[in-house]
């Protein structure tokens, strides 16, 4: 057994001890995971971001336009001192402004307009056979929106529509929860497969 498998096996078992109760072995493995993750992300950020995108093109490639983002980045460090903290507002304003400028049209198009147009579907399929899925989508959309409309009391016909909306919501939550359980089980199965096959060598 190689050292990597041995360490991974011991750490997996250490994490699983939490199922009994919180303990120092679990905490050691947890802190190690956090430390290694942060260390790894720092190294990747340094080599793939600061060195590759900023320092090497700026100092070796003499791409002096990069002084602007470099200076904006340096201004962010102003937050650590009361006297200079206002300087950090400049790069933050730039980030929020440019971020919103890019994100708002994209989200409006992708999440609202395209999704709205997708709710309008023909009631027959390509071969002319009636297809009620479009109708279900419309009923689901209107009744769910009715549930989230709080400007009017949920009574009468409007209240009934809101109640129908709750059924659609419950179906969505149930499906999402089911898939999430499936996902967590897959994680457990993956680790069990590693323990049984590579660590304990009980299966092939």
């Amino acid at each position, binding site marked *: 057994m190689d050292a990597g498998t041995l360490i991974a096996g011991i750490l997996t078992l250490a994490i699983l001890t939490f*199922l*009994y*109760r919180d303990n120092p072995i679990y905490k050691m493995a947890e802190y190690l995971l956090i430390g290694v*993750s942060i260390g*790894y*992300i720092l190294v*990747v*950020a340094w080599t*793939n*971001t600061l060195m*590759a*995108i900023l320092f090497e*093109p700026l100092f070796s490639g003499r791409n002096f336009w990069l002084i602007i983002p470099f200076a904006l980045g340096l201004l962010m460090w102003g937050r650590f001192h009361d006297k200079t903290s206002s300087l950090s507002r400049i790069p933050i304003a730039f980030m929020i402004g440019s*971020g919103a400028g*890019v*994100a708002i049209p*994209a*989200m409006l*198009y*992708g*999440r609202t307009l*395209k*999704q709205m*147009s*997708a709710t309008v579907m023909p009631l027959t399929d390509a071969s002319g056979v009636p297809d009620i899925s479009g109708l279900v989508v419309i009923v689901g959309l209107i009744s769910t929106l009715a549930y989230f409309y709080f400007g009017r009391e949920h009574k009468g016909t409007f209240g009934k529509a809101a109640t129908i909306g709750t059924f659609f919501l419950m179906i*969505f939550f149930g*499906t*999402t929860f089911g*898939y*999430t*359980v*499936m*996902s*967590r*089980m*897959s*994680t*457990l*199965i*993956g*680790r*069990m*497969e*590693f323990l*049984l096959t590579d660590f304990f060598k*009980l*299966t*092939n």
Partner: protein
Amino acid sequence: MKTFEARHWTFLGLLVVVAGAMILNIKLDMRVSPYTQRLYDCIDSLPDGSVLIVSFDHEASSLPEIRPIAQSVLRHTFKKGHKLIGVSLLAEGTLIGYRLMQETAREYGRVYGVDYVYLGFRPQYIAAILAMGESIGTTYPLDYLGRPYGQFELTRSVKNYDDVAAVLSIADGSLTTHWIEYGQARYGVRVLGAVTAAMVTTYDPYLSSGQMYAMMGGLRGAAEYEKLLAVSGGGARGMLAQSSAHLYIILLIALGNILYFASRKKGRGA
């Protein structure tokens, strides 16, 4: 001294069920869902040698689920002779993506630089997706191993999304949404998803609206894909354990409800 409580027995039961199912190692036959079939057909129908961008948009914690998902799709692409450009929009997925591509490429005898190239991580995923739409070589002047983008036979002919047949996002979170909102909406690149089960309902509306072309999800998706490919992998191996664990949870829910109603009835009677 702390003794075993109900939750401990529950966990122990789950552990026994999963381990038992894995030791038995019985392969379950399953029906391939239209989701997985569509993704398979999409990759299968691309002309041999098509260039795909594979984006490893996940963290290390989801590796047990991501590995069989990624392996099954990567096997198909390499088997078909497609050319792959690997990227990662999350720092944690960088090395995992590189290793997965390397392992799978080796199975099919594919060569680095000719059949696949791994470019690694770029921060600010929205900026990276938009920048690749203009020029991949400018966004990634160097590959993961620090060699120039234009050095490889594969990348010399790929300028931006115009030269790419599709983007395959292997994700455990919402990063595929950004490929849809920026890559697909702005540059018209076809977006495919291979995602964890927890993310299936998030991407379903994008699939229905046509913004995402095809998607497969979770360990079951991987098992279905392996069936279509006629290969044995982590997806199929885990399906008996997955089904047994689900059955165990359903039995616990039923038992919990029976006990609850029985205690309520007893309470009324007293």
